[in-house]
């Protein structure tokens, strides 16, 4: 059909169209790269806190991270005062495949100056490549001043301290509908026993108390690992938790088994789940992003998920203590203990050039934490110098208050610290099999077996 119409005139018209299209395309592409530099922080910046970093004009620092659009903007914005006052240029590169690519780049001798590493396990792997450099003294001093000892320990390998923490997230949260709780006269539980009583009360009221979803592509199963870590931390305390994570006690030992059974008391209880989503098995096939949405429909009362889950509710949802949904702290065994499971990132450097050291130091200050808090949504840090009032949304504020509470015992997500063969393979896979019917003993035995010798 087309063959006949390919006259010379048609061709020149086609060429013309293509040409115009190309020019328009160029114009469209060129447009957005220009206004990047003048959004935030153009107004007067007080450069006094930055004077100690000296003049770094003409120098460039490359940053590589797994944080991509739109969350990356808050990062680049938070670097601006530093760039303005020192004259340095920070080149930020976000990559969804960060976790595999950073290892490839480090091993190949092509690492960035600074990587934002989201797991202590990965940090250890990177240090093992021999390409990472130790944190300079001012960074270590800042971390001693602004973070708890546990945080410093996560970035210490063989007695050497490598990286200051960046952001943090709180995982020990239970999402609920404040209005539904108010209507039914439910109160936020303060101990694990109260949580169980509340769940039973909801069952008596003909409600499904819990909803959950663990499908997440190849990472399917991870929300159950968080559940078990939370239970481990609550039933046996932080010391046993650390031993469990570091494999000083076996994964199929009595503690681990009891913790998984405690999770089963909720997630494998057909009376408790899966509100608005189906039966127990439906947990395995429900996307984790959708696991808590039935709260909005009133078909589910509670959903245990980290602070970042806020982003999964529809835009018009009001996330606040007096809004459509909010979260409460997943209580400890008793009201006095406050174990918190969470996650976080670390700024690991691969270069000891002065400008990289200066930038690392900047990122470990309370100055940066507060600058970052002001430009972010869904971000919080465990930096004690952070003023919670700089956190604009209620859930960040809640997470910030929990993190900065002196009674809080923070523990990092355990599966993130376990060897990859367990933490990002066998544990997920076995947790998935467990929720679809495999018994607890087989599950913990299989995970123990997968632990690298």
């Amino acid at each position, binding site marked *: 059909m087309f063959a006949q119409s390919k006259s010379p005139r048609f061709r020149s018209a086609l060429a013309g169209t293509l040409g115009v299209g190309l020019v328009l395309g160029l114009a469209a592409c060129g447009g957005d790269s220009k206004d990047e530099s003048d959004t935030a922080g153009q107004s007067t910046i007080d450069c006094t806190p930055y004077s100690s970093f000296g003049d770094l004009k003409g120098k460039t620092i490359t940053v590589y991270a797994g944080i991509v659009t739109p969350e990356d903007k808050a990062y680049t914005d938070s670097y601006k005062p530093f760039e303005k006052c020192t004259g340095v240029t920070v080149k930020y590169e976000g990559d969804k495949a960060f976790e*595999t690519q950073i290892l490839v780049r480090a091993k190949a001798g092509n690492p960035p100056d600074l990587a934002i590493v989201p797991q202590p396990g990965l940090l250890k792997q990177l240090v093992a490549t021999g390409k990472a450099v130790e944190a300079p003294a001012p960074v270590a001093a800042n971390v001693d001043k602004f973070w708890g000892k546990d945080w410093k320990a996560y970035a210490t390998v063989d007695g050497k301290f490598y990286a200051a923490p960046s952001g943090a997230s709180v995982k020990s949260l239970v999402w609920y509908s404040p209005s539904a709780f108010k209507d039914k006269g439910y109160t936020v539980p303060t101990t694990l026993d109260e949580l169980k009583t509340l769940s039973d009360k909801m069952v008596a009221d003909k409600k499904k108390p819990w909803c959950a979803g663990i499908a997440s592509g*190849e990472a399917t199963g991870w929300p159950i690992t968080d559940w078990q870590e939370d239970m481990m931390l609550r039933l046996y305390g932080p010391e046993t938790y650390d031993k469990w994570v570091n494999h000083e006690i076996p994964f199929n030992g009595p503690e681990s088994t009891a913790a998984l059974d405690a999770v089963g008391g909720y997630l494998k209880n057909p009376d408790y789940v899966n509100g608005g989503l*189906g039966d127990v098995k439906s947990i*395995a096939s429900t996307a984790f992003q959708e696991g808590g949405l039935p709260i909005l429909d009133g*078909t589910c009362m509670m959903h245990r998920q980290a602070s970042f889950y806020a982003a999964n509710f529809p835009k018009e949802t009001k996330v606040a203590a007096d809004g459509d949904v909010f979260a409460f702290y997943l209580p400890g065994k008793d009201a006095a203990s406050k174990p918190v499971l969470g996650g976080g990132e670390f700024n690991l450097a691969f270069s000891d050039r002065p400008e990289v050291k200066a930038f690392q130091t900047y990122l470990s200050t309370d100055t940066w934490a507060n600058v970052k808090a002001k430009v972010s949504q869904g971000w919080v840090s465990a930096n004690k110098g952070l003023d919670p009032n700089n956190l604009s949304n209620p859930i960040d504020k809640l997470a910030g208050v929990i993190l900065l509470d002196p009674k809080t015992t923070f523990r990092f997500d355990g599966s993130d610290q376990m060897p990859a063969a367990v933490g990002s393979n066998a544990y997920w896979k076995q947790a998935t099999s467990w929720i679809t019917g495999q018994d607890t003993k087989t599950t913990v035995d299989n995970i123990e077996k997968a632990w690298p010798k």
Partner: protein
Amino acid sequence: MFDTAETTAEKFTQMFAAILLFAAVVGIILFIAGRFGGRRGDRVVAYSYLAPTLLMLTVGLVYPGVRTIYESFFDAAGDVFIGLDNYQTIFTDKDQLTVLTNTAVWVLLTPFIATGIGLLYAILIDRARLESFAKALIFLPMAISFVGASIIWKFIYAYRPDQADVQQIGLLNQIVVWLGGTPQLWLLDWPLNTLLLIVVMIWIQAGFAMTVLSAAIKAIPEDIIEAARLDGVGPWGMFRFVTLPAIRPAVVVVLTTIAIGVLKVFDIVRTMTGGQYDTSVIANEFYSQSFRSDNQGLGSALAVMLFVLVIPIVIYNIRHIRQSESL
């Protein structure tokens, strides 16, 4: 210049630099080749044209291949030589055996069913009215990427609970509900989930089989068909003794091409289940072991397995093409 390009201008500069580099390399080769004339020069010309290809094959295929085989004899970190332990794991570990079983099911079912459907369809619509429209219908899925097709089918298999106020969003479950059944979690239970993933591959590949086989059917000489008709051959006889022998080379090419494609299947499994619920296959498992589970040795061994499994199919394919050429 080798930094990541950020602005549009930089990207275009890099693009033009790459094109210039390519032109320069071709120019140099042509120049060298041009300096040798005459009969003896032919060899030099031939080799200088072959050189870049050979070089790239060595760097991009032979070296990584040999390196992968070498690494498959080492442990997870790639430090300690452990002999054939990784291969032993593949054939004894329960998870790995599931992977092998799944791969076998994929390779045994997909090529035959896809080719069968394609062949049947090609015969049915041959010289029918609206033939090209009917062909386009089954050929269209070929134009969809594996990931795109997987997402479409994920929706077809989607599950919503059996509750009064909940609507099904998945086609398959809606049909089940219309027929009076209860919605199922299709992708959870082995082996049904693997079979349902295979359906996606068949949906994509049947169009390919149909196109090639339809062309082959049309190439059967008219006089053979007429002779058979005069001999009073019925439709089944026509298919069995005329059509099938005549298009045999095409059928073999289609079967082997699909079989090789199926051995490498990765996108569908990764997009639809991520290899969870016991649906993993070798190509997916070797990626998971290498990059997620940090087990370089086992990952390499799985890649070698894949390579070994593809070889017989490729050899059969080449021999068959040679045979049919010599006829």
